Protein backbone atom coordinates (compact mmCIF):
# COMPACT_ATOMS: atom_id res chain seq x y z
CA UNK A 1 0.00 0.00 0.00
CA UNK A 2 1.13 3.56 -0.62
CA UNK A 3 2.12 5.56 2.41
CA UNK A 4 -0.54 7.72 4.04
CA UNK A 5 0.14 11.43 3.50
CA UNK A 6 -0.91 14.53 5.44
CA UNK A 7 -3.10 15.46 2.48
CA UNK A 8 -4.85 12.08 2.71
CA UNK A 9 -5.56 12.69 6.38
CA UNK A 10 -6.88 16.19 5.74
CA UNK A 11 -9.13 14.82 2.97
CA UNK A 12 -10.48 12.02 5.16
CA UNK A 13 -11.16 14.52 7.97
CA UNK A 14 -13.36 16.51 5.61
CA UNK A 15 -15.24 13.35 4.59
CA UNK A 16 -15.72 12.49 8.28
CA UNK A 17 -16.89 16.03 9.16
CA UNK A 18 -14.03 16.61 11.61
CA UNK A 19 -11.80 19.66 11.83
CA UNK A 20 -8.19 18.81 12.70
CA UNK A 21 -5.42 21.23 13.60
CA UNK A 22 -1.90 20.81 12.25
CA UNK A 23 -0.69 18.89 15.29
CA UNK A 24 -3.63 16.45 15.04
CA UNK A 25 -3.01 15.94 11.32
CA UNK A 26 0.64 15.13 12.08
CA UNK A 27 -0.27 12.70 14.87
CA UNK A 28 -2.99 10.95 12.85
CA UNK A 29 -0.75 10.66 9.78
CA UNK A 30 1.74 8.70 11.84
CA UNK A 31 -0.73 6.69 13.96
CA UNK A 32 -3.12 5.77 11.14
CA UNK A 33 -0.11 4.90 9.02
CA UNK A 34 1.11 2.39 11.58
CA UNK A 35 -2.32 0.73 11.88
CA UNK A 36 -2.58 0.54 8.08
CA UNK A 37 0.89 -1.04 7.98
CA UNK A 38 -0.40 -3.91 10.13
CA UNK A 39 -3.41 -4.20 7.81
CA UNK A 40 -0.94 -4.72 4.98
CA UNK A 41 -0.03 -8.03 6.68
CA UNK A 42 -3.25 -9.38 5.21
CA UNK A 43 -1.68 -9.10 1.76
CA UNK A 44 0.35 -12.21 2.65
CA UNK A 45 -2.86 -14.26 2.43
CA UNK A 46 -4.29 -15.61 -0.79
CA UNK A 47 -7.77 -14.13 -0.59
CA UNK A 48 -8.81 -14.24 -4.25
CA UNK A 49 -11.19 -17.15 -3.91
CA UNK A 50 -12.44 -16.30 -0.39
CA UNK A 51 -16.01 -15.08 -0.01
CA UNK A 52 -16.21 -12.02 2.27
CA UNK A 53 -18.21 -12.42 5.50
CA UNK A 54 -20.47 -9.42 5.90
CA UNK A 55 -22.24 -10.80 8.91
CA UNK A 56 -21.50 -13.57 11.42
CA UNK A 57 -24.87 -15.28 11.04
CA UNK A 58 -25.28 -14.76 7.31
CA UNK A 59 -28.76 -13.32 7.78
CA UNK A 60 -30.40 -11.79 4.73
CA UNK A 61 -33.51 -9.63 4.43
CA UNK A 62 -35.04 -9.99 7.86
CA UNK A 63 -38.63 -8.87 7.41
CA UNK A 64 -41.54 -8.19 9.71
CA UNK A 65 -45.23 -7.94 8.84
CA UNK A 66 -46.03 -4.52 7.39
CA UNK A 67 -48.23 -3.49 10.30
CA UNK A 68 -48.20 -0.17 12.14
CA UNK A 69 -46.51 -0.53 15.54
CA UNK A 70 -46.42 1.83 18.50
CA UNK A 71 -43.52 4.23 18.14
CA UNK A 72 -41.66 6.77 20.23
CA UNK A 73 -43.59 9.84 21.33
CA UNK A 74 -42.74 12.69 18.96
CA UNK A 75 -42.70 15.43 21.57
CA UNK A 76 -40.49 13.36 23.86
CA UNK A 77 -38.01 12.78 21.04
CA UNK A 78 -38.01 16.41 19.95
CA UNK A 79 -37.51 17.54 23.56
CA UNK A 80 -34.05 15.94 23.38
CA UNK A 81 -33.01 17.88 20.27
CA UNK A 82 -30.74 20.93 20.50
CA UNK A 83 -33.42 22.89 18.60
CA UNK A 84 -36.96 21.99 17.55
CA UNK A 85 -40.00 23.89 16.32
CA UNK A 86 -43.49 22.95 15.12
CA UNK A 87 -42.85 19.22 15.42
CA UNK A 88 -39.58 19.37 13.50
CA UNK A 89 -35.84 19.43 14.16
CA UNK A 90 -34.27 22.86 13.51
CA UNK A 91 -30.89 23.35 11.80
CA UNK A 92 -29.03 26.37 10.41
CA UNK A 93 -29.48 27.02 6.64
CA UNK A 94 -28.32 24.12 4.48
CA UNK A 95 -27.35 26.49 1.65
CA UNK A 96 -25.60 29.82 2.09
CA UNK A 97 -24.90 31.22 5.51
CA UNK A 98 -26.86 32.54 8.44
Amino acid sequence: MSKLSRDDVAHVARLAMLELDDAEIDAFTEQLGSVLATADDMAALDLDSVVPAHHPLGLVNVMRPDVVQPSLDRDEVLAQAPAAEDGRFCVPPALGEQ
Partner: protein
Amino acid sequence: MSGVASPAAAGSVSDIANAVTNGERSAVSVVDAHLARIDDHEGAVHAFNLVTADAARATAAAIDERLAAGEDVGPLAGVPVAIKDNMCTRGVPTTCSSKILDGWRPPYDATVVERLASAGAIMVGKTNLDEFAMGSSTENSAFGPTHNPWQLDRVPGGSSGGSAAAVAAGFTPLSLGSDTGGSIRQPASLCGVVGVKPTYGAVSRYGLIAFGSSLDQIGPFTTTVADSALTMDVIGGHDPRDATSSTESFGSLVDVLDRGVDGLRVGLISEMTGGVIDGIAEDVLARVRAAAEALEAAGATVGEVSVPSSVYGLPAYYMVAPAEASSNLARFDGVRYGLRVDGPNTAAMHTASRTAGFGPEVKRRIMLGTYALSAGYRDAYYGSAQKVRTLITQDFDRAYADFDVLLAPSSPTTAFELGAKTADPLTMYLNDVCTIPSNLSGQPSMSVPFGVGDDGLPIGVQILAPLMGEPVMFQTAAVLENAQEDAS
Protein backbone atom coordinates in the same frame (compact mmCIF):
# COMPACT_ATOMS: atom_id res chain seq x y z
CA MET B 1 -0.89 0.87 46.24
CA SER B 2 -3.58 -1.33 47.71
CA GLY B 3 -7.12 -1.86 46.57
CA VAL B 4 -10.72 -2.04 47.67
CA ALA B 5 -11.72 -5.17 45.77
CA SER B 6 -14.25 -7.44 47.38
CA PRO B 7 -16.40 -9.23 44.84
CA ALA B 8 -18.00 -11.20 47.66
CA ALA B 9 -19.17 -7.98 49.37
CA ALA B 10 -22.06 -7.63 46.94
CA GLY B 11 -23.34 -11.16 47.61
CA SER B 12 -24.44 -13.47 44.82
CA VAL B 13 -27.27 -12.73 42.42
CA SER B 14 -29.11 -15.93 43.27
CA ASP B 15 -28.69 -15.53 47.07
CA ILE B 16 -30.06 -12.00 46.98
CA ALA B 17 -32.98 -12.95 44.71
CA ASN B 18 -33.85 -15.90 46.95
CA ALA B 19 -33.62 -13.87 50.16
CA VAL B 20 -35.78 -11.08 48.76
CA THR B 21 -38.34 -13.47 47.27
CA ASN B 22 -38.59 -15.42 50.56
CA GLY B 23 -38.96 -12.25 52.59
CA GLU B 24 -35.72 -12.76 54.53
CA ARG B 25 -34.47 -9.42 53.27
CA SER B 26 -36.33 -6.44 51.86
CA ALA B 27 -35.29 -5.08 48.47
CA VAL B 28 -34.90 -1.68 50.15
CA SER B 29 -32.36 -3.04 52.65
CA VAL B 30 -30.41 -4.72 49.85
CA VAL B 31 -30.27 -1.52 47.81
CA ASP B 32 -29.34 0.57 50.87
CA ALA B 33 -26.45 -1.76 51.72
CA HIS B 34 -25.08 -1.61 48.17
CA LEU B 35 -25.46 2.16 47.94
CA ALA B 36 -23.56 2.46 51.24
CA ARG B 37 -20.68 0.42 49.82
CA ILE B 38 -20.71 2.59 46.68
CA ASP B 39 -20.58 5.70 48.93
CA ASP B 40 -17.56 4.33 50.76
CA HIS B 41 -15.40 3.38 47.77
CA GLU B 42 -16.70 4.98 44.57
CA GLY B 43 -14.41 7.98 45.10
CA ALA B 44 -11.40 5.69 44.75
CA VAL B 45 -12.74 3.47 41.94
CA HIS B 46 -14.90 5.74 39.74
CA ALA B 47 -16.88 2.84 38.30
CA PHE B 48 -19.96 4.98 37.65
CA ASN B 49 -20.82 7.92 35.44
CA LEU B 50 -24.05 8.23 37.39
CA VAL B 51 -25.46 6.58 40.54
CA THR B 52 -29.26 6.53 40.44
CA ALA B 53 -29.74 6.20 44.19
CA ASP B 54 -33.19 7.78 44.54
CA ALA B 55 -34.69 5.88 41.62
CA ALA B 56 -33.15 2.63 42.91
CA ARG B 57 -34.68 3.13 46.39
CA ALA B 58 -38.08 3.92 44.85
CA THR B 59 -37.93 0.82 42.62
CA ALA B 60 -36.92 -1.30 45.63
CA ALA B 61 -39.83 0.01 47.69
CA ALA B 62 -42.24 -0.81 44.85
CA ILE B 63 -40.81 -4.35 44.66
CA ASP B 64 -41.25 -4.82 48.40
CA GLU B 65 -44.89 -3.72 48.09
CA ARG B 66 -45.54 -6.15 45.25
CA LEU B 67 -43.95 -8.97 47.25
CA ALA B 68 -46.09 -8.04 50.27
CA ALA B 69 -49.12 -8.29 48.01
CA GLY B 70 -48.09 -11.83 47.08
CA GLU B 71 -46.89 -11.07 43.55
CA ASP B 72 -44.11 -12.98 41.78
CA VAL B 73 -41.48 -10.32 41.14
CA GLY B 74 -39.18 -12.44 38.99
CA PRO B 75 -35.94 -14.43 39.16
CA LEU B 76 -33.76 -11.36 39.89
CA ALA B 77 -35.98 -9.92 42.65
CA GLY B 78 -34.17 -7.07 44.39
CA VAL B 79 -30.81 -7.64 42.67
CA PRO B 80 -28.85 -4.38 42.27
CA VAL B 81 -27.43 -4.05 38.76
CA ALA B 82 -25.09 -1.60 37.04
CA ILE B 83 -25.53 -0.83 33.33
CA LYS B 84 -22.76 0.22 30.96
CA ASP B 85 -23.44 3.77 29.91
CA ASN B 86 -23.83 2.91 26.22
CA MET B 87 -27.20 1.22 26.81
CA CYS B 88 -30.31 3.37 26.67
CA THR B 89 -32.19 3.97 29.89
CA ARG B 90 -35.43 5.88 29.55
CA GLY B 91 -35.19 9.35 31.11
CA VAL B 92 -31.77 8.60 32.60
CA PRO B 93 -28.71 10.29 31.01
CA THR B 94 -26.84 7.95 28.65
CA THR B 95 -23.48 9.35 27.62
CA CYS B 96 -21.22 6.65 26.11
CA SER B 97 -18.65 8.55 28.23
CA SER B 98 -18.65 11.15 25.46
CA LYS B 99 -19.22 14.89 25.53
CA ILE B 100 -21.22 14.57 22.32
CA LEU B 101 -24.20 13.03 24.15
CA ASP B 102 -24.11 15.75 26.81
CA GLY B 103 -27.52 16.13 28.42
CA TRP B 104 -29.25 13.40 26.39
CA ARG B 105 -31.96 11.37 28.12
CA PRO B 106 -33.10 8.48 25.90
CA PRO B 107 -36.84 8.25 25.27
CA TYR B 108 -36.74 4.45 25.56
CA ASP B 109 -35.10 1.54 27.39
CA ALA B 110 -32.76 -0.97 25.76
CA THR B 111 -34.35 -4.43 25.59
CA VAL B 112 -31.82 -5.80 28.11
CA VAL B 113 -32.67 -3.01 30.56
CA GLU B 114 -36.36 -3.75 30.12
CA ARG B 115 -35.83 -7.50 30.62
CA LEU B 116 -33.73 -7.01 33.78
CA ALA B 117 -36.37 -4.70 35.24
CA SER B 118 -39.16 -7.16 34.38
CA ALA B 119 -37.19 -9.86 36.23
CA GLY B 120 -37.08 -7.72 39.38
CA ALA B 121 -33.52 -6.34 39.11
CA ILE B 122 -32.89 -2.78 40.28
CA MET B 123 -30.59 -0.44 38.37
CA VAL B 124 -28.30 1.52 40.71
CA GLY B 125 -26.27 3.35 38.08
CA LYS B 126 -24.62 3.75 34.71
CA THR B 127 -21.01 2.67 34.44
CA ASN B 128 -17.97 4.31 32.90
CA LEU B 129 -16.44 3.10 29.62
CA ASP B 130 -13.93 4.08 26.98
CA GLU B 131 -15.75 6.67 24.87
CA PHE B 132 -18.20 4.82 22.59
CA ALA B 133 -16.60 1.55 23.83
CA MET B 134 -13.39 2.28 21.92
CA GLY B 135 -10.50 1.23 24.11
CA SER B 136 -9.05 -1.42 26.38
CA SER B 137 -8.45 0.49 29.61
CA THR B 138 -11.41 2.86 30.26
CA GLU B 139 -8.89 5.69 30.04
CA ASN B 140 -10.58 7.08 26.92
CA SER B 141 -13.59 8.29 28.94
CA ALA B 142 -14.49 11.99 28.76
CA PHE B 143 -15.18 11.74 32.49
CA GLY B 144 -11.83 10.36 33.63
CA PRO B 145 -10.59 6.79 34.08
CA THR B 146 -11.93 3.97 36.24
CA HIS B 147 -9.43 2.41 38.66
CA ASN B 148 -8.91 -1.32 39.13
CA PRO B 149 -10.40 -2.22 42.53
CA TRP B 150 -7.59 -4.75 43.17
CA GLN B 151 -4.89 -2.13 42.82
CA LEU B 152 -5.98 1.43 42.29
CA ASP B 153 -3.05 2.57 40.17
CA ARG B 154 -3.92 -0.11 37.59
CA VAL B 155 -6.50 0.00 34.79
CA PRO B 156 -9.65 -2.14 35.04
CA GLY B 157 -9.39 -3.02 31.36
CA GLY B 158 -11.97 -1.87 28.86
CA SER B 159 -14.01 -0.81 27.31
CA SER B 160 -16.51 -2.07 29.93
CA GLY B 161 -14.09 -1.18 32.74
CA GLY B 162 -16.70 0.51 34.92
CA SER B 163 -19.01 -2.52 34.79
CA ALA B 164 -16.17 -4.94 35.62
CA ALA B 165 -14.91 -2.71 38.43
CA ALA B 166 -18.43 -2.32 39.90
CA VAL B 167 -18.65 -6.10 40.39
CA ALA B 168 -15.03 -6.50 41.56
CA ALA B 169 -15.50 -3.72 44.13
CA GLY B 170 -18.64 -5.36 45.46
CA PHE B 171 -20.83 -2.43 44.41
CA THR B 172 -23.26 -4.71 42.57
CA PRO B 173 -23.33 -8.48 42.12
CA LEU B 174 -24.23 -8.03 38.45
CA SER B 175 -23.50 -5.57 35.68
CA LEU B 176 -23.91 -5.50 31.92
CA GLY B 177 -21.19 -4.70 29.44
CA SER B 178 -20.80 -4.81 25.67
CA ASP B 179 -18.08 -6.64 23.77
CA THR B 180 -17.01 -5.63 20.25
CA GLY B 181 -13.42 -6.92 20.34
CA GLY B 182 -12.99 -8.11 23.92
CA SER B 183 -14.60 -5.32 25.92
CA ILE B 184 -16.29 -7.73 28.36
CA ARG B 185 -13.73 -10.56 28.55
CA GLN B 186 -10.56 -8.48 28.93
CA PRO B 187 -11.85 -6.29 31.82
CA ALA B 188 -13.37 -9.40 33.42
CA SER B 189 -9.90 -10.97 33.36
CA LEU B 190 -8.20 -7.87 34.75
CA CYS B 191 -10.81 -7.43 37.50
CA GLY B 192 -11.10 -11.09 38.54
CA VAL B 193 -14.77 -11.57 37.66
CA VAL B 194 -16.77 -13.71 35.23
CA GLY B 195 -17.54 -11.99 31.90
CA VAL B 196 -19.54 -13.41 28.98
CA LYS B 197 -19.64 -12.49 25.29
CA PRO B 198 -22.62 -14.44 23.98
CA THR B 199 -23.10 -15.69 20.43
CA TYR B 200 -23.76 -12.77 18.09
CA GLY B 201 -27.54 -12.34 18.05
CA ALA B 202 -28.20 -14.31 21.25
CA VAL B 203 -28.87 -11.12 23.24
CA SER B 204 -30.81 -8.22 21.76
CA ARG B 205 -28.79 -5.13 20.84
CA TYR B 206 -31.88 -2.90 20.68
CA GLY B 207 -30.96 0.23 22.64
CA LEU B 208 -27.24 -0.50 22.65
CA ILE B 209 -25.60 2.52 21.04
CA ALA B 210 -23.89 0.95 18.04
CA PHE B 211 -20.11 0.79 17.62
CA GLY B 212 -19.41 -2.12 15.23
CA SER B 213 -22.82 -3.51 14.37
CA SER B 214 -21.63 -6.86 13.02
CA LEU B 215 -19.46 -7.42 16.13
CA ASP B 216 -21.25 -5.86 19.15
CA GLN B 217 -22.78 -8.14 21.79
CA ILE B 218 -24.15 -7.43 25.28
CA GLY B 219 -23.28 -9.76 28.15
CA PRO B 220 -23.05 -9.99 31.95
CA PHE B 221 -20.33 -9.54 34.55
CA THR B 222 -20.86 -11.51 37.79
CA THR B 223 -18.80 -13.09 40.55
CA THR B 224 -19.96 -16.63 39.74
CA VAL B 225 -20.63 -18.69 36.62
CA ALA B 226 -24.09 -19.59 37.94
CA ASP B 227 -25.02 -15.91 38.28
CA SER B 228 -24.00 -15.26 34.68
CA ALA B 229 -26.10 -18.25 33.57
CA LEU B 230 -29.10 -16.92 35.48
CA THR B 231 -28.63 -13.49 33.89
CA MET B 232 -28.30 -14.94 30.39
CA ASP B 233 -31.57 -16.82 30.93
CA VAL B 234 -33.21 -13.42 31.64
CA ILE B 235 -31.65 -11.19 28.96
CA GLY B 236 -31.24 -13.70 26.11
CA GLY B 237 -33.69 -14.76 23.44
CA HIS B 238 -35.22 -13.33 20.29
CA ASP B 239 -36.25 -9.70 20.14
CA PRO B 240 -38.25 -8.54 17.11
CA ARG B 241 -36.89 -5.02 17.64
CA ASP B 242 -33.36 -6.21 16.75
CA ALA B 243 -33.32 -7.57 13.20
CA THR B 244 -30.01 -9.34 13.88
CA SER B 245 -31.38 -11.14 16.93
CA SER B 246 -31.32 -14.91 16.56
CA THR B 247 -34.55 -16.89 16.48
CA GLU B 248 -32.71 -20.00 17.67
CA SER B 249 -32.55 -20.86 21.35
CA PHE B 250 -29.95 -22.78 23.32
CA GLY B 251 -32.29 -23.20 26.26
CA SER B 252 -31.69 -22.48 29.94
CA LEU B 253 -28.03 -22.18 30.95
CA VAL B 254 -28.82 -22.63 34.65
CA ASP B 255 -29.93 -26.15 33.77
CA VAL B 256 -26.56 -27.21 32.29
CA LEU B 257 -24.22 -26.07 35.06
CA ASP B 258 -23.81 -29.45 36.76
CA ARG B 259 -23.23 -31.52 33.61
CA GLY B 260 -19.46 -31.69 34.14
CA VAL B 261 -16.81 -32.19 31.48
CA ASP B 262 -16.43 -35.96 31.47
CA GLY B 263 -15.46 -36.97 27.92
CA LEU B 264 -15.44 -33.39 26.70
CA ARG B 265 -12.71 -32.52 24.15
CA VAL B 266 -10.86 -29.33 25.12
CA GLY B 267 -8.49 -27.67 22.63
CA LEU B 268 -5.72 -25.24 23.54
CA ILE B 269 -5.38 -22.69 20.74
CA SER B 270 -1.73 -23.15 19.83
CA GLU B 271 -1.23 -19.67 18.28
CA MET B 272 -2.25 -18.07 21.58
CA THR B 273 -0.46 -20.46 23.92
CA GLY B 274 2.81 -21.23 22.15
CA GLY B 275 4.56 -18.06 21.09
CA VAL B 276 3.12 -17.53 17.59
CA ILE B 277 1.31 -14.46 18.88
CA ASP B 278 3.89 -12.38 20.74
CA GLY B 279 3.46 -10.55 23.99
CA ILE B 280 1.44 -13.04 26.01
CA ALA B 281 2.95 -13.08 29.49
CA GLU B 282 4.38 -16.29 30.94
CA ASP B 283 2.26 -16.09 34.11
CA VAL B 284 -0.88 -15.83 31.98
CA LEU B 285 0.14 -18.85 29.89
CA ALA B 286 0.82 -20.80 33.07
CA ARG B 287 -2.73 -20.22 34.27
CA VAL B 288 -4.21 -21.28 30.91
CA ARG B 289 -2.21 -24.52 31.07
CA ALA B 290 -3.29 -25.02 34.69
CA ALA B 291 -6.91 -24.62 33.56
CA ALA B 292 -6.40 -27.28 30.90
CA GLU B 293 -4.96 -29.63 33.53
CA ALA B 294 -7.88 -28.96 35.86
CA LEU B 295 -10.35 -29.84 33.11
CA GLU B 296 -8.34 -32.97 32.29
CA ALA B 297 -8.46 -33.97 35.96
CA ALA B 298 -12.25 -33.53 35.81
CA GLY B 299 -12.52 -36.01 32.93
CA ALA B 300 -11.97 -33.95 29.79
CA THR B 301 -9.41 -34.82 27.14
CA VAL B 302 -7.06 -31.97 26.25
CA GLY B 303 -5.19 -31.39 23.01
CA GLU B 304 -3.64 -28.58 21.01
CA VAL B 305 -5.39 -27.11 18.02
CA SER B 306 -4.28 -24.57 15.46
CA VAL B 307 -6.45 -21.65 14.35
CA PRO B 308 -3.89 -20.29 11.88
CA SER B 309 -5.77 -17.27 10.56
CA SER B 310 -6.40 -16.00 14.10
CA VAL B 311 -3.07 -14.18 13.86
CA TYR B 312 -4.72 -11.95 11.24
CA GLY B 313 -7.60 -11.15 13.57
CA LEU B 314 -6.10 -7.93 14.85
CA PRO B 315 -5.47 -6.26 11.47
CA ALA B 316 -8.85 -7.44 10.16
CA TYR B 317 -10.63 -6.14 13.23
CA TYR B 318 -8.93 -2.74 13.05
CA MET B 319 -10.41 -2.32 9.58
CA VAL B 320 -13.89 -3.79 10.13
CA ALA B 321 -14.66 -2.18 13.50
CA PRO B 322 -13.53 1.37 12.62
CA ALA B 323 -15.30 1.12 9.24
CA GLU B 324 -18.58 0.23 10.91
CA ALA B 325 -17.94 2.84 13.63
CA SER B 326 -17.34 5.61 11.10
CA SER B 327 -20.73 4.82 9.60
CA ASN B 328 -22.56 4.38 12.92
CA LEU B 329 -21.14 7.55 14.45
CA ALA B 330 -22.19 9.67 11.48
CA ARG B 331 -25.52 10.04 13.30
CA PHE B 332 -23.89 12.29 15.91
CA ASP B 333 -24.16 15.52 13.99
CA GLY B 334 -25.76 18.02 16.38
CA VAL B 335 -29.27 17.67 14.90
CA ARG B 336 -31.35 15.22 16.93
CA TYR B 337 -29.61 14.77 20.28
CA GLY B 338 -26.70 15.81 22.45
CA LEU B 339 -24.18 18.52 21.80
CA ARG B 340 -24.61 21.19 19.14
CA VAL B 341 -21.95 23.79 18.39
CA ASP B 342 -23.50 26.40 16.12
CA GLY B 343 -22.11 27.31 12.73
CA PRO B 344 -23.17 29.56 9.84
CA ASN B 345 -24.73 26.64 7.93
CA THR B 346 -25.70 23.01 8.50
CA ALA B 347 -22.41 21.52 7.32
CA ALA B 348 -20.37 23.86 9.51
CA MET B 349 -22.61 23.04 12.49
CA HIS B 350 -22.12 19.29 11.92
CA THR B 351 -18.35 19.67 11.76
CA ALA B 352 -18.12 22.02 14.76
CA SER B 353 -20.34 19.74 16.90
CA ARG B 354 -18.42 16.57 16.04
CA THR B 355 -15.04 18.24 16.46
CA ALA B 356 -15.96 19.51 19.94
CA GLY B 357 -17.88 16.41 21.01
CA PHE B 358 -15.64 13.44 20.13
CA GLY B 359 -12.41 12.61 22.00
CA PRO B 360 -9.08 11.68 20.36
CA GLU B 361 -9.55 7.87 20.18
CA VAL B 362 -13.03 8.16 18.68
CA LYS B 363 -11.73 10.63 16.09
CA ARG B 364 -8.84 8.25 15.34
CA ARG B 365 -11.22 5.34 14.70
CA ILE B 366 -13.63 7.42 12.64
CA MET B 367 -10.69 8.59 10.52
CA LEU B 368 -9.36 5.05 10.14
CA GLY B 369 -12.77 3.69 9.17
CA THR B 370 -13.53 6.50 6.77
CA TYR B 371 -10.18 5.90 5.07
CA ALA B 372 -10.72 2.11 4.93
CA LEU B 373 -14.05 2.69 3.17
CA SER B 374 -12.91 5.51 0.89
CA ALA B 375 -12.70 5.26 -2.88
CA GLY B 376 -9.69 3.31 -4.06
CA TYR B 377 -8.95 1.66 -0.71
CA ARG B 378 -12.16 -0.14 0.13
CA ASP B 379 -11.27 -3.44 -1.53
CA ALA B 380 -7.71 -3.53 -0.22
CA TYR B 381 -8.59 -2.79 3.39
CA TYR B 382 -12.23 -3.38 4.25
CA GLY B 383 -12.69 -6.04 1.55
CA SER B 384 -9.63 -8.03 2.63
CA ALA B 385 -10.66 -7.80 6.27
CA GLN B 386 -14.10 -9.23 5.49
CA LYS B 387 -12.41 -12.14 3.70
CA VAL B 388 -10.06 -12.76 6.63
CA ARG B 389 -13.21 -12.95 8.71
CA THR B 390 -14.38 -15.87 6.57
CA LEU B 391 -11.01 -17.62 7.00
CA ILE B 392 -11.12 -17.24 10.79
CA THR B 393 -14.64 -18.66 10.93
CA GLN B 394 -13.60 -21.60 8.72
CA ASP B 395 -10.55 -22.27 10.93
CA PHE B 396 -12.72 -22.25 14.04
CA ASP B 397 -15.25 -24.58 12.40
CA ARG B 398 -12.43 -27.01 11.59
CA ALA B 399 -11.24 -26.84 15.20
CA TYR B 400 -14.74 -27.58 16.46
CA ALA B 401 -14.88 -30.71 14.36
CA ASP B 402 -12.33 -32.19 16.80
CA PHE B 403 -13.00 -30.22 19.97
CA ASP B 404 -16.08 -29.18 21.96
CA VAL B 405 -14.57 -26.04 23.50
CA LEU B 406 -11.31 -24.13 23.07
CA LEU B 407 -9.10 -22.46 25.67
CA ALA B 408 -6.99 -19.32 25.36
CA PRO B 409 -5.89 -16.37 27.48
CA SER B 410 -8.48 -13.60 27.89
CA SER B 411 -5.87 -10.86 28.11
CA PRO B 412 -2.13 -11.01 27.28
CA THR B 413 -1.22 -9.62 30.72
CA THR B 414 -2.65 -8.78 34.13
CA ALA B 415 -3.84 -5.21 34.77
CA PHE B 416 -1.26 -2.63 33.67
CA GLU B 417 -0.62 0.78 35.18
CA LEU B 418 -2.80 3.74 34.30
CA GLY B 419 -1.08 5.71 31.56
CA ALA B 420 1.25 2.85 30.57
CA LYS B 421 -0.21 2.33 27.09
CA THR B 422 -1.89 5.63 26.24
CA ALA B 423 0.96 7.05 24.16
CA ASP B 424 0.80 4.51 21.32
CA PRO B 425 -2.62 3.37 20.05
CA LEU B 426 -1.21 0.21 18.45
CA THR B 427 0.22 -0.99 21.78
CA MET B 428 -3.21 -0.55 23.34
CA TYR B 429 -4.90 -2.41 20.46
CA LEU B 430 -2.72 -5.49 21.15
CA ASN B 431 -4.69 -6.07 24.37
CA ASP B 432 -7.49 -7.52 22.23
CA VAL B 433 -5.37 -10.03 20.32
CA CYS B 434 -6.88 -13.11 22.01
CA THR B 435 -10.49 -11.91 22.15
CA ILE B 436 -11.01 -10.39 18.69
CA PRO B 437 -11.30 -13.66 16.70
CA SER B 438 -14.56 -14.59 18.49
CA ASN B 439 -16.12 -11.27 17.57
CA LEU B 440 -15.13 -11.69 13.94
CA SER B 441 -16.64 -15.20 13.86
CA GLY B 442 -19.67 -14.27 16.01
CA GLN B 443 -19.01 -17.25 18.28
CA PRO B 444 -19.44 -17.13 22.08
CA SER B 445 -16.64 -16.95 24.59
CA MET B 446 -16.26 -16.05 28.22
CA SER B 447 -13.57 -15.23 30.77
CA VAL B 448 -13.46 -17.13 34.05
CA PRO B 449 -11.10 -16.05 36.87
CA PHE B 450 -8.41 -18.68 37.37
CA GLY B 451 -5.81 -17.53 39.85
CA VAL B 452 -3.39 -14.63 39.89
CA GLY B 453 -0.19 -13.58 38.16
CA ASP B 454 3.29 -12.89 39.50
CA ASP B 455 2.08 -9.46 40.63
CA GLY B 456 -0.80 -10.98 42.60
CA LEU B 457 -3.41 -9.55 40.20
CA PRO B 458 -6.25 -11.62 38.69
CA ILE B 459 -5.96 -13.70 35.52
CA GLY B 460 -8.93 -14.95 33.53
CA VAL B 461 -9.01 -17.96 31.24
CA GLN B 462 -11.03 -17.66 28.04
CA ILE B 463 -13.37 -20.48 27.04
CA LEU B 464 -14.53 -20.40 23.42
CA ALA B 465 -17.38 -22.39 21.87
CA PRO B 466 -19.11 -22.78 18.49
CA LEU B 467 -22.13 -20.69 17.46
CA MET B 468 -24.96 -21.10 20.01
CA GLY B 469 -22.55 -23.26 22.03
CA GLU B 470 -23.30 -21.45 25.30
CA PRO B 471 -24.42 -24.64 27.10
CA VAL B 472 -21.08 -26.45 26.63
CA MET B 473 -19.21 -23.22 27.36
CA PHE B 474 -21.04 -22.72 30.65
CA GLN B 475 -20.71 -26.34 31.77
CA THR B 476 -16.95 -26.05 31.20
CA ALA B 477 -16.83 -22.72 33.05
CA ALA B 478 -18.63 -24.22 36.05
CA VAL B 479 -16.05 -27.01 36.31
CA LEU B 480 -13.18 -24.53 36.03
CA GLU B 481 -14.70 -22.37 38.75
CA ASN B 482 -15.00 -25.34 41.10
CA ALA B 483 -11.41 -26.39 40.39
CA GLN B 484 -10.28 -22.87 41.23
CA GLU B 485 -12.16 -22.94 44.55
CA ASP B 486 -10.68 -26.33 45.43
CA ALA B 487 -7.16 -25.06 44.72
CA SER B 488 -7.43 -21.86 46.77
